[in-house]
């Protein structure tokens, strides 16, 4: 599936909850519990994205010219959103990742979590994901 297709899938999945914030957050928390967890040996300070409040760890690796992400966070709701991001972009090429818009976050009503004032590290994580893709693309061109 393309990034856009996965985004649509997530939007449909969340539409089922309608105005039921509780259901939506319970789903998000559940997604957090099933996040492709970063291997402990890589959960190091250099992979730590510092938010003011919650921390996010992120690792990327390349397999067959596609980039795969694993991550973790010390807050479960943050972790749920990390899981969504990874689900959307992991396993795609550098170009696809660089061009991803992440509009689904707004569509499923979680945009507040990407506010810079939220200080949960997610905005920095998105930047890091794209940066990793750019670095890996540059490396492959060399």
């Amino acid at each position, binding site marked *: 599936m393309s990034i856009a297709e996965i985004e649509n899938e997530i939007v449909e999945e969340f539409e089922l909850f309608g105005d039921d*914030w*509780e259901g939506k*957050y*319970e789903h998000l*928390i559940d997604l957090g519990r099933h996040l492709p967890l970063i291997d402990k040996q890589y959960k190091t300070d250099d992979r730590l994205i510092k938010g*003011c*409040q*919650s*921390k996010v760890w992120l690792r990327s690796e390349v397999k067959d010219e596609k980039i795969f992400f694993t991550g973790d966070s*010390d*807050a*479960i*709701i*943050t972790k749920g959103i990390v899981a969504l991001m990874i689900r959307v972009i992991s396993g795609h090429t550098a170009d696809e990742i660089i061009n991803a818009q992440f509009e689904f976050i707004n569509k499923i009503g979680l945009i507040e979590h990407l506010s810079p004032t939220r*200080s*949960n590290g997610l905005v920095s994580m998105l930047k890091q994901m794209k940066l990793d893709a750019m670095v890996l693309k540059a490396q492959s061109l060399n």
Partner: protein
Amino acid sequence: METITKYSVLNIQKLRQDFPILSKKVNGKPLIYLDNGATAQKPTQVIDAISNYYETQNANIHRGVHQLSIETTVTYENARVTVQKHLNAALSQEIIFTSGTTESINLLANSFGKKYIKAGDEIIISEMEHHSNILPWQILCEEKGAVLKVIPINDKGELLMDEYKKLLCDKTKMVAVTHISNTLGTINPVKEMIELAHEKNIPVLIDGAQALPHIKVDVQALDADFYCFGGHKIFAPSGVGILYGKEKWLNEMPPYKVGGGTIKTVTFEKTEYADLPLKFEAGTPNIEGGIGLAAAIDYVNEIGLENIGAYECELLEYATAKLSAIEGLRIIGTAKEKASVISFVIEEIHPLDIGTILDKLGIAVRTGHHCTQPLMQHFGIPGTIRASLVFYNTKEEIDVLVNGIEKAIKMLK
């Protein structure tokens, strides 16, 4: 006890009507505002004072010959007197308008530091200070080669007074401590601390940002050399604050920022600065802020700080008992002398997660390190959830908070 009954049972609902925002709904739920330690809500008395200023008086102060400017100058200077009386300062020129607590401390550290601090000197702060009462002193120490000394705390969140006594020495040039901890609620024994410092002729700054909304402050009784606070936490607008300083210090201290209003005469060779308080008030001040601050002080005094204190004490006891009963919840900050600020953590759950769910329930709390990272390091936690209560909060709201926390725990565990 009559006053407690009067305010806790009968008049709280009436007082709440003074605050239009308290009838707002958030996420479809009635707003429960428990983030007063960050900023307090404003009563119509304050909002009206600001509107009235803009509708009938707006002009620059201390400048114009025209009627509006004269009226505004009088109103603004009356506001200064209101603050002076409220703090029981000896003179109105000892009241310096600033933009808030942060600017007050920056002003003091810069100005006092320029004149009095040299290499090898020591400045004492405490482990529970807000970053605003750490960084200005830290920068000053770095610039001057001075040393920052820190009074440690015990696990209840109380200052270790014996350690404080040991720190006071001939090298100490300033003690800067908070009156009430914004994170723990601890009320520090500032009178005693000032006495001890004065035995060695050391001046003391008290950061009263969290104290003014809760307790009566008398700077002469405390014998504080400097005392500061911001307006927004005592129901006044944001962007206005006060630095109180004893005249003898303020007269000796150089201006901190300069510009319009701070001078007697200016030539390109030499400037003669104005007398207090204008020496420290460069540029057009936050006039409506000062006027709003006076209105807020009048409002608080009308209710009576003793009544407020008694009611908040009752609220604190109630909230402490209710929250303590929640399984896995641990209160951070259990000092004997405590204001109505309750920080807590919940086993295995990140404070941000709890705060997010509470927000969905219309409950506003603060989560995080509360600008007191060294304190978080002391307790070995990433942050806390903080409910900071004032007189318009109710026991019913605490019940809703407790139910909200229990719901959040169920969702998050």
